[in-house]
């Protein structure tokens, strides 16, 4: 199988980001960059498929040279090679990124193209749809279970309150969700081998954005927590608040 996985470099979610002075971007200093967590599920799934069916996994990512560190993380997991689409920044408008990705993906003759269901930084949830649309391929996203057999696939998708099972023909575009698999740890051997793998750099001509970020606002400060002091006697009240106020149960 010939598989491409599109990954995006995003800030580590464990880190608290700060809005920069321009009010439109985040302070880059001190940020730990990681593979977008949903993309990690995509990489893992692609690796498992090639381990089972043979073939190669190519990582595709758009951005400046600095993202090669993150691309190497995916290579350390076991991906075979990578393409970096060279651009001086990662576009804010998903349609711009999608166009540039498609320019490269259309030449790769891929059986499957994986992406994460969304990037955790800008949360657009669009890339899989945009890419599949441009390539004229089926798009299956929010996938939690995937089976590929010959030229066909079935996928379980998470939908509101349950699951939907869909069938599709390859080639196809898959948007990975959490729970699709457990991404492997990078091994020391994998990290050492990643160094020797090639990252092909291709030029990009970015289209003019149709969408620009005007302002970033940090979330409002958290309200103070409620403390219940009566032990078991408060259980019913806690349950009621979890249901009616927090709406988590």
């Amino acid at each position, binding site marked *: 199988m010939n598989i491409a996985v599109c990954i995006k470099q995003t800030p580590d979610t*464990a880190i608290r980001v700060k809005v920069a002075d321009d009010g439109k971007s985040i302070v880059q200093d001190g940020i730990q960059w990681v593979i977008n967590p949903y993309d990690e599920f995509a990489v893992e799934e692609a690796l498992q498929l090639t381990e089972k069916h043979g073939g190669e996994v190519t990582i595709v990512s758009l951005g400046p040279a600095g993202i090669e*560190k993150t691309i*190497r*993380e995916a290579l*350390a997991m076991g991906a075979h090679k990578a393409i970096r689409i060279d651009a001086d920044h990662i576009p804010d408008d998903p349609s711009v990124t999608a166009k540039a990705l498609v320019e490269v993906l259309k030449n790769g003759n891929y059986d499957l193209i994986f992406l994460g269901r969304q990037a955790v930084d800008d949360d657009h949830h669009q890339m899989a749809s945009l890419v599949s649309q441009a390539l004229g391929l089926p798009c299956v996203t929010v996938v939690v279970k995937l089976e590929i057999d010959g030229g066909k696939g079935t996928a379980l998708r998470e939908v509101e309150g349950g699951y939907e099972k869909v069938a599709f023909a390859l080639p196809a575009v898959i948007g990975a969700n959490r729970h699709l698999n457990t991404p492997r*740890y*990078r*091994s*020391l*051997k*994998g*990290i*050492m081998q990643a*160094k020797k793998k090639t990252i092909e750099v291709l030029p990009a001509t970015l289209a003019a954005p149709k969408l620009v970020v005007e302002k970033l606002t940090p979330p409002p400060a958290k309200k103070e927590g409620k403390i219940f002091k009566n032990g078991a006697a408060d259980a019913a009240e806690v349950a009621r608040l979890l249901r009616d106020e927090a709406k988590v149960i």
Partner: protein
Amino acid sequence: MKPFESPDYFNMDELLSDEEKMIRSAVREWVGENVMPVIEKAYLDAVFPRDLIPQMGELGLFGPNLPEKYGCAGTNNVAYGIMMQELERADSGVRSFASVQGSLVMYPIYAYGTEKQRQHWLPKLASGEKIGCFGLTEPDHGSDPGGMKTTAVKDGNSYILNGAKMWITNGTLADVAVVWAKLDGTVRGFLVEKGTPGFSAPEMHNKHSLRASVTSELILQDCRIPAENLLPESGGLKSPLGCLTQARYGIAWGVMGAAMACYDEALNYAKTRIQFDKPIASFQLVQQKLVYMVTEITKMQLLSLQLGRLKDQKKFKFTHVSMAKRNNVFQALEIARLARDILGANGITAEYQSMRHMCNLETVKTYEGTHDIHTLIIGADITGIPAYS
């Protein structure tokens, strides 16, 4: 839970390559998710968490600085040190397991063994399929291994080993023991396999330290091994000492992990524990302790990194390792004691890690050349006068 962040007061990260940092985050992530949740109980129960062994093999934590053709990762020595730091952030026992397997078993087979021995053992030891131990210390010969009583006698196509080893990490678990014995008066290394008649490895119990690690005796009674189990390139005390230099290198890095864990715990505790209506971190005496800790950690980092770079450039001497082992273990132990102190009564419980690290580090201070023996090694180097012969 927020992932662990190591103190980096002097921007030491700037001195590490991307690959070294990637190895650190890979090991840190695995340790955080797989070792931290089980280690406290393993320590209290005095068992080594054996489930970790295949995972450690998979990650490549055994002998990563040995060549790829033997199934190893082929990292540089700095990356090897960083990995040890991350393991000991969890527990000295887990780091000891990796030290013994990599530096004291795989290394001598690599350095003193035949190609056939390497091909046979190294891939299996690297993957964790086989476990090894290193038997040098004897009941009556610790700091003075040259006085060892264990002997090997050639008999046809075999060697017959007699003697007893003590305090042997992983002994009871091991599939193969690297045993040091005198053959015609010269110290040589032998591979003794589990199950060989005349060889047993009972576990030693009731330790107050390194409880999440198996420590054993090795008993050799007319133990007959094939002549091909001799490590042919070993000869003289310099051979086991060569292994110890490798292991001590890993220890110098490893103990920083324990020290960092203690500092992190004490700092967080001090900022949240209120006494006299103020966080205890606001008291000058507590600040002094915290400052001591972070300063010593920073000095250790600089010492270890330069040691690693020297080792990678093949410019390092065993006396450099002695200085780093001696200093870093001593300071890590001081830091663990201070952390325990800052934690007050909570510090003596298994809810916190500092006392476990403190107890472990008492072993680390003694094994692999005691603190004082390293003083004498450096003393002999700078004065030209050995104080121990």
